[in-house]
C-alpha cells in the first residue's frame, strides 16, 4: 500500500514538469505569428503530417454588440457571410445591386406602416408588403444560390461551418493543402465585399433556428429565461439568436452597417494549422487578405452589470422532466482568479471522481448528472459560474438545490486535498496535449488565445496559471462568489395535469 502510494506521488511530481518543458518548446518551433499592415493577425502552426490544413477565422464581435432593438444581428450576419460576394453568387452584380437597393427601400416603407401605433392602414400595408416581396423576387433573378458554399464543397472543403455566441463569431473549414491560395481568395472576398442577397428568406431560416433551439425545447426555454433574469444591465441578458420581434424587423441595411463596423482586419485573427509553410503561405495570405481595408478597432464599450442585490428565481412549468440550475456572477476571463474558477469547475465536474458526481449521482442517488461550469453565457465580460443537476424520477429540484449547496459549503469551509489539487493540474496538462493532434482544434485554439490575450502562447500559460492555484485560493474565491444575493436559480418543474390533457407529459 505504502510503496504503491509513493509510486503514484512520484509519477505526479515528474509528469507535469516533463510535459511543460517538452510541449511549449517543441510547439513554438512550429508556430509563427504574423501581423499584416492592415491589422489582420495570422497564426500558423505547421504540422506537415498529411497534405491538408484547417483554418479558423475569429472575429471579435458577438451578440453583445447587437445594436439596440436589433438582437440577433451578429448571428444573422454570420448566415449572410455564406451568401456570396460581388463576384460569387450573382449573374449580374450591377443589376442585382440596383434591385437590392429597391428591396431595402420597399422594406423600409413597409416597416414604417407596419409599426405604426395608430392609424395603420391594413390595405395599404398589404400593398406595401406585396411591393417589398415583388422587389425581392426581382432581385432573386440575379442570384446563383449558394455558389460560395458550392465552391468550397466541390473543391474538397470539409466541415464548413460558422458559429456566433455572445463574445465572438467564427468561420471554419478544412481544405486539401493545394487549395491554400483558393482559400485565401475566398476568405478575403467574403469579408471584402459580402452581398446581402436573399436576406429576408435567410431571416426566416434563422427564425426556424430559434424555434428549434429555444421555442420548441424546454431546456432552451429555461436557459433563455434564466440568463435574462441573471443579467439586467449587461448585454448578456439578450439571447444570441435574437428576440422574435427584432428578427422580424431588422434589415439587410442593418446587417451591412454591422459588417462595416465590426468586420475590420484589426478585429480579426486567423488561425491556420496543418500542412502550411509560413514562408510560402504568408505572401499568398498577404496578397488576398491584405486587401481588406485597414480600420480602427470598433468601440468596445458595453454596459457593466452592477452587483446583484438579492437572489432571483425563474420557475418554468413544463410538460417535461425537471431540471435545476443556479448561477453566480463572477468577473471576466482576464480576472486574476480565472484559473481558480477553472480549478473549481474541474474539481466539481470532471469525470467520476468529481465531487458533484460522487455526491449527487453515486452516493445520494438523486441525480443522473450534475456539474458546475464557468462561462455562461460567455466569458469575455463578467459572467456566471453555474451548477446544474438532472433529478432522477422520484426526486425534486429542491433536493438538487440542497445537495449542490452542501458541496459548495464544503468548498468554502474545507481545503481541497493534495490529491485533488494534483489531479486537476495533471488533467489540465493532459487535456492540453490531447488537443494538439487535431488541425481544426489547433487552429481554433491558436486564433482564440491570440484574439483574447494578444498572444497564442497563453494556451500554454493558462495551464501554468492553473499550476499556481492553491487551496486557499479555492476557499477564498468560493466564499467570495457563491453567496445568496449573488445567485440566480432556474428550475423546470413538471406541469401538473389540468384534466383537459394539456398538462400531460407525453
Amino acid at each position: 500500500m505504502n510503496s504503491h502510494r509513493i509510486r503514484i506521488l512520484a509519477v505526479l511530481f515528474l509528469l507535469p514538469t516533463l510535459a511543460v518543458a517538452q510541449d511549449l518548446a517543441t510547439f513554438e518551433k512550429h508556430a509563427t505569428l504574423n501581423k499584416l499592415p492592415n491589422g489582420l493577425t495570422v497564426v500558423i502552426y505547421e504540422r506537415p503530417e498529411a497534405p491538408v490544413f484547417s483554418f479558423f477565422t475569429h472575429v471579435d464581435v458577438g451578440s453583445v454588440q447587437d445594436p439596440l432593438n436589433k438582437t440577433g444581428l451578429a448571428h444573422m450576419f454570420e448566415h449572410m457571410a455564406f451568401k456570396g460576394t460581388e463576384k460569387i453568387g450573382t449573374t449580374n452584380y450591377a443589376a442585382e445591386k440596383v434591385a437590392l437597393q429597391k428591396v431595402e427601400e420597399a422594406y423600409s416603407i413597409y416597416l414604417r406602416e407596419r409599426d405604426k401605433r395608430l392609424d395603420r392602414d391594413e390595405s395599404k400595408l398589404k400593398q406595401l408588403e406585396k411591393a417589398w416581396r415583388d422587389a425581392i423576387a426581382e432581385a432573386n433573378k440575379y442570384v446563383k444560390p449558394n455558389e460560395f458554399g458550392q465552391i468550397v464543397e466541390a473543391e474538397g472543403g470539409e466541415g464548413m461551418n460558422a458559429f456566433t455566441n455572445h463574445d465572438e463569431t467564427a468561420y471554419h473549414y478544412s481544405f486539401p493543402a493545394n487549395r491554400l491560395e483558393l482559400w485565401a481568395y475566398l476568405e478575403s472576398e467574403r469579408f471584402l465585399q459580402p452581398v446581402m442577397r436573399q436576406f429576408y428568406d435567410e431571416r426566416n431560416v434563422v427564425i426556424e433556428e430559434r424555434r428549434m433551439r429555444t421555442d420548441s425545447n424546454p431546456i432552451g426555454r429555461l436557459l433563455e429565461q434564466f440568463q435574462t433574469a441573471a443579467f439586467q444591465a449587461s448585454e448578456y441578458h439578450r439571447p444570441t439568436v435574437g428576440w422574435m420581434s427584432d428578427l422580424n424587423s431588422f434589415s439587410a441595411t442593418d446587417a451591412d452597417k454591422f459588417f462595416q463596423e465590426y468586420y475590420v482586419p484589426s478585429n480579426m485573427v486567423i488561425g491556420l494549422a496543418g500542412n502550411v509553410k509560413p514562408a510560402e503561405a504568408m505572401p499568398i495570405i498577404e496578397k488576398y487578405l491584405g486587401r481588406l481595408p485597414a480600420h480602427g478597432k470598433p468601440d468596445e464599450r458595453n454596459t457593466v452589470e452592477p452587483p446583484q442585490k438579492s437572489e432571483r428565481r425563474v420557475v418554468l412549468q413544463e410538460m417535461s422532466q425537471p431540471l435545476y440550475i443556479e448561477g453566480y456572477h463572477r468577473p471576466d476571463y482576464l480576472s486574476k482568479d480565472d484559473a481558480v474558477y477553472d480549478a473549481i469547475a474541474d474539481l466539481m465536474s470532471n469525470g467520476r471522481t468529481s465531487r458533484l458526481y460522487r455526491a449527487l449521482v453515486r452516493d445520494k442517488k438523486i441525480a443522473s448528472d450534475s456539474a458546475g461550469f464557468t462561462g455562461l453565457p460567455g466569458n469575455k465580460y463578467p459572467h456566471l459560474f453555474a451548477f446544474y443537476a438532472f433529478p432522477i424520477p422520484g426526486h425534486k429540484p429542491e433536493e438538487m438545490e440542497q445537495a449542490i449547496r452542501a458541496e459548495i459549503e464544503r468548498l468554502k469551509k474545507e481545503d481541497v486535498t493534495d490529491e485533488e489539487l494534483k489531479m486537476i493540474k495533471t488533467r489540465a496538462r493532459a487535456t492540453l496535449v490531447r488537443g494538439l493532434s487535431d488541425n481544426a482544434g489547433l487552429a481554433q485554439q491558436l486564433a482564440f488565445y491570440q484574439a483574447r490575450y494578444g498572444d497564442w502562447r497563453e494556451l500554454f500559460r493558462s495551464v501554468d496559471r492553473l499550476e499556481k492555484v492553491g487551496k486557499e485560493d479555492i476557499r477564498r474565491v468560493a466564499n467570495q462568489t457563491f453567496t445568496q444575493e449573488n445567485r440566480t436559480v432556474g428550475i423546470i418543474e413538471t406541469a401538473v395535469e389540468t384534466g383537459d390533457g394539456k398538462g400531460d407529459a407525453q
Partner: protein
Amino acid sequence: MKTLSLLILTVIAGAVMFVSAAAAQVTDWKQIPIPTLPTFRPKEPKRIELQNGMVIFLTEDHELPLIDGIARIRGGSREEPANKAGLVQLYGETWRTGGTKNQTGDQLDDFLEARAARVETGGGTDSTTIGWSCLKEDLDDVFKVFLDVLRDPAFRPDKLDLAQKEAIDAISRRNDNPLQIAARQAAKLAYGADNPYVREPEYSSIAAVQQQDLMSWHKQHLYPNYIILGITGDFDLAQMEARLRQAFGSWAKGPAWRNPHIEFHPAQPAYYLVDKKDVNQSNIRMVGLGTTRDNPDYYAIEVFNYAFGGGFSSRLFQDIRTRRGLAYAVGGGIGTAFDHPGLLQMRLGTKSGTTVEALQALYQVIDDVQKHPIDEAEMKRAKDAILNSFIFNFDTPEKVLRERMAYEFYGYTADFLERYRAGVEKVTIADVARVAAKYLHKEQFPVLVVGNSSEFDKPLSALGPVVPVNTSIPPPSGGKKPAALERGNERKH
C-alpha cells in the same frame, strides 16, 4: 518574449515584399492555380492475427506522447432479448464502473484520474467496446487496468443499480425534446417497431436485468476470435506486438461467431402524428429502407445523396431552405450501412403554420428529381466534393485505424476506400437517375410529423390517412420495480 515576436514579424515583413500588387486583379476564383496535391500514402496499420483468431491493428505515431487503444467485441443490443432491452447498455456501463475482482470501480477511477488516463467500456448495437487512453509513461499501469477490466470484471450490484437509475432517468426524459422523438419514431417507421435496431429499453426491461445477465453476456462474448483491437500512439511496434502476444496468445478460442438474422418491416404509408402541444415547429421525417454498402448501387447512391440532400448545393437545401426559407435544418438521402439496410430519410423542421406547405414542397422536390434528374453539372459538383475531400477519410492515423477496424469487423476488404474512390469516379448520370427511380418511391414512404397539430396550416388528413402515434411511456409492470421509481412521483399515462 517580446524580441521573439518582433523577430518573427520582421521575417514575415521581408517575405511580403516579394509579392506583386496583382492581387486586386483576380476577378474569378477559377483563375486561381491549384497545384497537384502531393501523393499521400497514409501509414497503414500493421495487421496481426493471433492463432486464436484475435485481430490486432497497430500504428506507431510519435507526434505526441500518448497511447490509445480500443477493442471492439462482437455482439450488441440487436442480440439482447426483447424483455431485457437495455441489457447491453447496462453491461457497457457496469463493465467498467463495477470494477474488477481486485479493485472496485471507484478505486479504478482514482487510480486512472491521478494519471489523467482513461479506461472506458460501452455497449452498442452490434458490438461492445473497451478502450484506454494514457500518456506513454503510464502504459504499463494503464494496460494492466485494461487487461483486468477486460478479463475479470466484477459487475458489482451497486453499480448495476446506478446504471439502472440513469437508464430509467433517460427513459423518463425521452419525450422532452422533439428532435429526439422524431429521430426515434422515424427509425421505428422505417425498420418496424419491434426491429432490434430501434427497440427501446422500457422501465420494465431495465428492471428485469440482473447481475447474472451481465456476467453471462461477458462469458458468452469474451473470446479472442470475437475481438478486434486497434492501438495508435507513441510506442515501438515490435515491443507492443510482444506485449500483446504475451497477454493474449494463450487465450482459448471460442465457438465460431454467427450474425443474427434480423428482419425489416417498414410501416404502411400514412401520416404518423406525434401531437405535441408545447412546440411551435414541426419536425417532419419521410422514411424508407436504404441499403448496404456492398450493394453495387452504393457509389451511385453516394453521388445522388450529395446532389439531392447533402450539402449547400443540394436540391433539398436549395429549395426548402434557401429558396423558400421554410426550414433551418433540412436534408436527407438513401442511407447505407455495412451489414444492414441504412435509413432512407428526408427530414426538415418548419414552423407549425407551414407544416403541410413544407411537406408538399418536399414531395415536389422528390417528383422533380425524377422528372429532371440530376444533371451533368450537379453530378460533377457532387463527385468533386466527394473526391476532392477524399483525403479527409485518412488524414490522421486514428482515422485510418478506425476504418480498417470497421472493414475487418464487417468482413469488407481492406481496400474498401480505394474501391470507393474508383466506384464514385465511374458513376454516370444514368446511374444516378436509375438509383433515384429505384429507391425513391414517395407513395410508399411513411411520414412522421412531430408537431402541434392545432397550429398546422391544414390538417394532415388533407394529404392522406393520419395515424396518431402514442409515445407515452409504459409504466413499470409486474416484476421488480426499479428502485428509483419506488418513491414515485411518476405519473400514470
